[in-house]
């Protein structure tokens, strides 16, 4: 199944995807702001935003499928994702940071709720 050129091309995965022109645009607003934030023009080209959305959806799709094969087959856990990106320092540290922040928020909310409960008894 090897094609000429750099890319491997999994024919199994083609059937699930809508043709590119018909793919629903779900992130356009957020992506536009994100691109500006990362250094693009204040008004990015719409065609660029749309292409980037397709690339992001492709990326998430690939990562999701790979994560399903790792660990418990057919399920995704955070550990699976962490395993996949273990060699990518930026992504790895970002995920660790997000999960740590999330945990701290959760504890803070819980502590807040407990105080609320104690003072309204």
């Amino acid at each position, binding site marked *: 199944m090897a*094609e000429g*050129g*750099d*890319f*491997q*091309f*999994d024919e199994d*995965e*083609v059937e699930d*995807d809508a043709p*590119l022109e018909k793919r629903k645009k*779900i*992130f356009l607003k*957020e*992506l536009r*702001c*994100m*691109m500006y*934030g*990362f*250094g*693009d*023009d204040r*008004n*990015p*080209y719409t*065609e*660029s935003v749309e*292409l*980037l959305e*397709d*690339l*992001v*959806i*492709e*990326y*998430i*799709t*690939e*990562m*999701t*499928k*790979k994560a*399903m094969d790792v660990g418990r087959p*057919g*399920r*995704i*856990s*955070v550990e699976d*994702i962490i395993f*996949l*990106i273990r060699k*990518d320092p*930026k*992504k790895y540290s*970002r*995920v660790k940071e*997000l*999960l740590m922040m*999330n945990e701290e928020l959760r504890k803070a909310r819980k502590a807040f709720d407990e105080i609320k409960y104690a003072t309204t008894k």
Partner: protein
Amino acid sequence: MFRRAAFPRAAIKRLMQSITRTSVSHNVVIAMAGIAKVFVGEVVEEALDIMEKSKETGPIQPKHLREAVRRIRKRDSLFRPKKSLLNT
């Protein structure tokens, strides 16, 4: 006031669940949204780099994004975009 741009978690969750056909936990969605944003940052930075080297100005064009992804893919064997996305 400014907010940091982020991918909406509901949309990420829906996308992932359409692929896994099973429920996806809160933490997994958070992780994936975060990784996707880093991915966008890498592509945009690379595209800007390409533009700078060829002395182009203005907003990023699709051709810059395509070349950026090609270069990133060489470094990161984990992501293989569909060939059709990269055809100019």
